[in-house]
């Protein structure tokens, strides 16, 4: 599948933003985070900018972005519509929670309840994003049980790395966020490795024989394509990445997205406080951002659509 940069940015940024919103929406009412209104402003601001920026970026993928509001109507059947509805709904309690905290210094009671509600909608939004891909049967690399856990784990990893970095500015030392960040990186790494192993070993039930309803005489192979030049289907669904490039990019994603953040967040946890710990936490965020963008680009580039079976693909 063609990796569109607008979608790569949308899924990574909004995944991190909504995960941060969930952590702050839960953590502040429970008293696990600094109660300083300025902390609320920075943490919620970061979450909203990332989540909102990601959603705005997704509009660049549309052929008719001026009609984007129509996408909120089909939540009964469409995961894309559900994603839109849930993500926009999440901003409503998030706004109440943010105003209550930042302007009135309240994080408990009704304001806290709004935080918890925003947290629930935020994580539901990441779930819906994963389901948009997991529900597409023609793409085996998406239609499997690892995709939604991947989206949740990778989002939580990014959110916790960000939260640990922000909390250190206020508290000056490692808190529970630091420990959770290390665990989140490990879980995300594990789930991504399982995903990669899955797509390397399992291919679709569909073959060129089932796609053409032929095969009673033996193997079916393409003789002539229907057209000599590319078409929309080949541009959008026929994107292929060389095995060598995929392997190299996986190594980069593994290193920048998981190994470096794991080491840096562990170092920050062990250092507890000080400038080096803050620098390590900050670098962990930057490395993870780079790694996740490459990981997400690969998520598209390595996905194979059944339509390519009609154009000579040996398997999908």
């Amino acid at each position, binding site marked *: 599948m063609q990796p569109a940069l607008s979608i790569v940015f949308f899924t990574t940024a909004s995944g991190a933003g909504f995960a941060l919103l969930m952590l702050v929406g839960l953590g502040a009412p429970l008293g696990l985070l600094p109660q300083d209104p300025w902390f609320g402003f920075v943490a919620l601001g970061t979450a909203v900018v990332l989540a909102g920026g990601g959603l705005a970026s997704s509009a660049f993928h549309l052929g008719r972005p001026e009609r984007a509001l129509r996408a909120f109507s089909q939540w*009964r059947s469409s995961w894309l519509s559900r994603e839109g509805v849930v993500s926009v709904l999440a901003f409503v309690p998030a706004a109440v929670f943010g105003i209550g905290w930042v302007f009135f210094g309240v994080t408990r009671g009704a304001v806290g309840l709004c935080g918890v509600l925003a947290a629930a909608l935020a994580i539901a939004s990441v779930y819906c994003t994963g389901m948009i891909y997991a529900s597409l049967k023609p793409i085996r690399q998406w239609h499997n049980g690892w995709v939604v856990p991947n989206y949740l784990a990778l989002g939580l990893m990014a959110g916790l790395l960000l939260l640990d970095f922000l909390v250190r500015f206020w508290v000056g030392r490692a808190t529970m966020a630091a420990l959770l960040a290390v665990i989140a990186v490990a879980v995300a790494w594990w789930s991504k490795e399982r995903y990669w192993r899955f797509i390397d070993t399992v291919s679709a039930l569909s073959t060129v024989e089932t796609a053409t309803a032929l095969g009673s*005489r033996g193997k079916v192979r393409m003789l002539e394509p229907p057209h000599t030049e590319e078409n*929309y289907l080949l541009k959008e669904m026929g994107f292929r990445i060389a095995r060598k490039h995929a392997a190299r990019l996986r190594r980069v994603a593994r290193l920048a997205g998981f190994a470096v953040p794991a080491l840096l967040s562990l170092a920050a946890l062990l250092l507890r406080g000080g400038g080096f710990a803050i620098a390590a936490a900050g670098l962990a965020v930057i490395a993870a951002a780079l790694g996740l963008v490459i990981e997400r680009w690969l998520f598209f580039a390595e996905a194979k659509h059944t339509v390519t079976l009609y154009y000579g693909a040996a398997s999908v």
Partner: protein
Amino acid sequence: MTDLPAQHPGQKKLGLVIDLDLCVGCHACATACKEWNTGGHMAPLPDFHPYGAGVWGVWFNRIHSFEEGEGPGARTVHFPKSCLHCEEPACVTVCPTGASYKRAEDGIVLVNEAICIGCQLCAWACPYGAREFDADEGVMKKCTLCIDRIYNDTLLAEDRIPACVMVCPTKARHFGDLGDADSPVSELVAERRGRDLMPELGYKPVNKYLPPRRERMVEARRPLALDPVMAEPERPEGIGDRLLRWADRVLSR
């Protein structure tokens, strides 16, 4: 709404039956489709860089060619592919706007271009590659089963069939109601054991493909009668040949 219409037994399911035994891969159906539909319900079907390198455009019907089997039993199969108007079309249910819909009255899958946002998720959801994006208008387009022909009172009754079916020179394409077990198309499917494409995905395509018939092969092939002619040895040069060569040399000076 992108919810699918409720199904009931005997429901009308308009679609195509494509005979892979007869198709000769002439692309007449694809051309006729393009010609009709670029002025029809989903018009236009744009072409990009039509006179330059990298020409591409929107087509609703594409003719692939495959080889099936190896050796003497193998054959070439030309394979036309257009929207299959599935009973479980995920292209409809994934649509976030309601632009993509399946008609309750005849099962035709259509796009309402006026509310399509061009997210292209429907094209991803279609395993068959039936939908193509119009990059000019920013909306998705697809086969309409020539809805503007089959219900068109201004056409003669015999012309109220899809353009691809009308133009086929080998009568490899048939149009009819596959929901009616007694219709000619349903009988054809039953008789020739018509098949679904990618049934494992559960889209339940309405269009059916008739597999190529088994050839009645002779037991052993005799050598071709042309062989002795091909093997004729060169005869020695005579006096006439030498004379002609001399004349040729003189005249070419």
